[in-house]
């Protein structure tokens, strides 16, 4: 009631007090944020706007020995998302992803899943679709405000002209495989990098990948670069690899092999051409091939499934990984071993009937008419099986002692069989040189004399890769030096300067005396030039002095109407006889007769070397 004279301060002063209190709090906090901690926040503002972006280096190019490009980079566009820059409001974010999905013809769920997988590193772009047509990329780039967080990357991809001839040798590139991704990340790769996964692409990955440059840029909240601030590290373009292959020879050899395969109705074949003077790989073909341009853009799972389930395994390089019985092409080793071990001398003649029977088993000669008595040179030229049976396993009837499997195995290994040559390509197999121990341990059986016989003619459990056969041929051709096959000769930088030389390497000198080698070579020349040579008729005395050896190797498969096992067609050869410059080995799976199917392929390839002017 009004009568009270107690002067209480009006309530309004309470409000003044509230105002004062509010302002003190605000000023105090403002001071704390702007003045006391201002430096820290300024730093964080800088962190926001400054990004270090990596510039992908251009991958090195692959050349053949004449300097022709056989793998190169072409521009292509990738659509990626940088998760940290996607809109934060959930509805807008979902809209953006859906819009992107419509444009890219992908489902929004797929896109979301890819983005979610990259949660731990939201600043690195994660690839959504690649490649996309240029127009599509431009559409997205022009409407950047509708696609916040979407990054259009212009990336070069690999292009392989003439993939059908080179495919497996060159290999392909692709995204880093999930297994072992951590080691890659640790060695400087980023999650969205591609690397070589097979062939030369993989073997020379370190040389060809270059080094990414780092740039400091200013970005806005959408992640768009508004300003370049400085270059932290310059980009280093990848080194270019000069292969020893010759593109024209490779193409020609591939065509010849394909034609031969088709004629013999075979599903698989391989060819290796080496330079006997230094071990250079001049051509390496493995059919069937695949188009590695399929991989360049990221292979579809349907395509990959088709390739990996193909019974002829187009994804495997059969030239280095295919293991086949070498058949009669192995006889040079047997002959060299027999001569060197003085089981026989060059004049020793052994009877070559149609067959021999030992311990109740009959071992046939290929020629059912018998071939008389032959010496080493003649046995090679006419490919008499009996000769080689006996020098390996002996003859219980005549008491002739053979060298035994142990010795033969030694020589086989000396010639490069049963071990990897060390060529700089992944996936090389070592083949198999069987011995008594091996048979006991692996097959749990004892060694019979028949096993000696079989190995002596390149059958039995003996397995070899076409590369090993070619390498043996090259070593014979050059007089007895086994080289390590060389697939690349140098790595050059973008300016053409050599940064790495890969020199020819000798594995070993063959433990065979020169005069014995000469006999072997003479025998191989007779195969082609002598009227009784097994390839004489098939090759029709070519002008080019070729020396070689046919092979018709039986393998386990469905027998024909006469009860014969199927055979691979093989031929190894070199030219010119006096001063060999190229050695070639060919195998056509289930190709029938070596002389009929494989010999012409080798001969034509050898001729092509000269007509094409390969240097």
């Amino acid at each position: 009631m009004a009568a009270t004279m107690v002067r209480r301060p009006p309530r309004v002063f309470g409000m003044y007090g509230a105002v004062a209190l509010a302002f003190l709090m605000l000023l105090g906090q403002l001071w704390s944020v702007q003045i006391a901690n201002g430096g820290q926040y300024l730093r964080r503002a800088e962190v926001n706007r400054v990004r270090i972006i990596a510039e992908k280096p251009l991958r090195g190019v692959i050349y053949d020995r004449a300097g022709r490009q056989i793998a190169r980079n072409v521009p292509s566009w990738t659509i990626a998302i940088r998760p940290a820059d996607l809109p934060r409001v959930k509805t807008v974010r979902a809209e953006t992803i859906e819009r992107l999905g419509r444009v890219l013809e992908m489902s929004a769920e797929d896109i979301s899943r890819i983005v979610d997988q990259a949660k731990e590193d939201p600043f690195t772009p994660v690839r959504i679709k690649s490649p996309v047509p240029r127009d599509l990329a431009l559409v997205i780039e022009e409407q950047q405000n509708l696609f916040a967080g979407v990054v259009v990357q212009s990336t070069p991809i690999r292009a392989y002209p003439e993939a059908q001839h080179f495919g497996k040798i060159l290999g392909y590139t692709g995204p880093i495989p999930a297994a072992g991704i951590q080691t890659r990340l640790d060695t400087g790769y980023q999650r969205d990098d591609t690397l070589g996964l097979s062939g030369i692409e993989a073997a020379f990955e370190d040389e060809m990948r270059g080094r990414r440059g780092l740039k400091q840029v200013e970005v806005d909240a959408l992640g768009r670069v508004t300003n370049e601030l400085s270059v932290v590290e310059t980009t280093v373009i990848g080194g270019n690899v000069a292969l020893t292959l010759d593109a024209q020879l490779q193409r020609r050899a591939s065509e010849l092999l394909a034609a031969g395969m088709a004629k013999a109705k075979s599903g698989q074949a391989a060819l290796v051409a080496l330079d006997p003077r230094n071990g250079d790989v001049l051509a390496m073909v493995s059919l069937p091939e695949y188009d590695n341009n399929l991989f360049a853009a990221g292979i579809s799972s349907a395509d990959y499934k088709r390739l990996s389930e193909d019974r002829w395994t187009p994804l495997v390089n059969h030239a280095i990984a295919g293991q086949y019985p070498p058949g009669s092409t192995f006889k040079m080793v047997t002959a060299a071993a027999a001569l060197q071990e003085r089981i026989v001398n060059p004049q020793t003649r052994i009877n070559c009937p149609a067959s021999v029977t030992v311990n109740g088993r009959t071992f046939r000669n290929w020629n059912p008419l018998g071939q008389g008595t032959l010496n080493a040179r003649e046995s090679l030229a006419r490919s008499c099986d009996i000769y080689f049976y006996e020098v390996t396993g002996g003859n219980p009837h005549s008491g002739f002692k053979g060298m035994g499997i142990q010795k033969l195995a030694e020589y086989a290994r000396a010639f490069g069989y049963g071990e990897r040559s060390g060529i700089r390509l992944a996936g090389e197999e070592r083949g198999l040189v069987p011995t008594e121990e091996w048979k006991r341990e692996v097959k749990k059986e004892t060694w019979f004399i028949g096993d000696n016989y079989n190995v002596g003619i390149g059958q039995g459990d003996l397995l070899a890769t076409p590369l090993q056969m070619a390498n043996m041929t090259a070593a014979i051709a050059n007089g007895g030096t086994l080289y390590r096959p060389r697939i690349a000769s140098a790595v050059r930088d973008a300016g053409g300067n050599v940064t790495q030389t890969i020199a020819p390497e000798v594995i070993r000198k063959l433990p065979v005396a020169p005069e014995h080698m000469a006999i072997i070579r003479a025998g191989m020349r007779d195969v082609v030039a002598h009227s009784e040579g097994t390839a004489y008729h098939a090759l029709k005395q070519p002008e080019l002095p070729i020396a070689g050896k046919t092979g018709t190797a039986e393998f386990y498969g469905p027998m024909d109407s006469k009860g014969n096992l199927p055979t691979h067609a093989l031929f190894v050869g070199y030219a010119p006889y006096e001063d060999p410059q190229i050695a070639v080995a060919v195998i056509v799976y289930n190709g029938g007769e070596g002389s009929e199917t494989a010999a012409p392929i080798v001969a034509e390839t050898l001729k092509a070397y000269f007509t094409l002017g390969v240097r």
Partner: protein
Amino acid sequence: MQRKSWAKFDLWLLFLALALACFGFLVIRSATLLADQQVSRQLITQAAFAGVGLMALFAIAALDYRVLGTLAIPLYFGTIAILGAVLVAGKTIYGAQRWIAVGPVQFQPSELAKFAVIVCLARYLSGREEKGFGLKTLVGSLLIVLVPVALVYRQPDLGTSLVLMAIWFGMVFIAGAPLQWLGGLLAVPFVAFPLVWRVMHDYMRRRLTIFLAPERDPFGEGYNMIQARISVGSGGWWGRGLGNGTQTQLNFLKVQQSDFIFAVLAEELGFFGAAILLGLFGAVFFRCLLIGQRSRDSFGRLLAAGVTSMLLFQVFINIGMNIGLAPVTGIPLPFISAGGSSLLTVFISLGVLQSVLIHAQARRYDTQPNVSVPATIRIRRERFPLRWVGGRIGRSVAARRLQRLTRPGAHR
């Protein structure tokens, strides 16, 4: 007797409002700066609304504020109706139903609700004054405010609900509610917190947890708080310069033109600029409370209290959420935030206060009706509200003024 006296118009308040509005233009320009344009669409809209607001201010000032009092009930129910309509037919922006489109303009009825509640509560509380502030008054006032609060809360708009409660609290405090009750009521939300927590909308819960620990979700919910604080902090003493704030210009700061406009200001104009802003606001509150003290009747006083509570709460919470003192609640910063409805409401509210000054009735005292009080004491009470604060200075100022007033021929 009623008399219009434009001489009583508070020019200071007008200038402060204009200064703040212009300050707002500067900052909005920075926040909406485009590479090729000097002036953006939002800036033009804001200027247009300021113009309209200014005219509204003068129009309302010309009107006797007591007329508003008689219109309180229709105003109240009209607002309830519009709020209901919003719930049914409002446009959804940023996930809330807050706007109604009127022609080309978007209009936020919750702003209108604030004004309506101030007027209504002022009318109700001043009407019940003779009876003293009893429990019935308290409950009645609470009911008046809770209906709009419920409708607004359902939009959902936690920020405006809180503003309405703050208005209620301030007005009830000035109206003389016993302090113990007020203290008790303040304690209720804290005590009932567990229940409140469960009943809250999901997004409000998230807002509170993010307020306490924004770093836990730096790219999601916590982003805005963190970026706002970075923006403010990076301003330092003098700021980065208008148009040069990297957080603002590179769009790291979101909702730049409304919720986080203060951060734009703080980043570009620094502590210096922010302090000036706080000074201007402080002066505005000061002038408003002064009007409350000068008001001849409790209706006017309560209007002033309501307007001040509304502005103070909004300023504190908006600036607070930019610097980490309050959770993000979508409350606009008066005068500065881009938003026509808010600007208009503020200008209208100030217009009402001007009206209170201009249409001040001749001497009638709330507490002593019809008592003839000596002229000197009257004059002192009218003219020298600072008596409590002034002391000797106040008294000498008072004495001089008294001389001037009592000279022969002076108007009374």
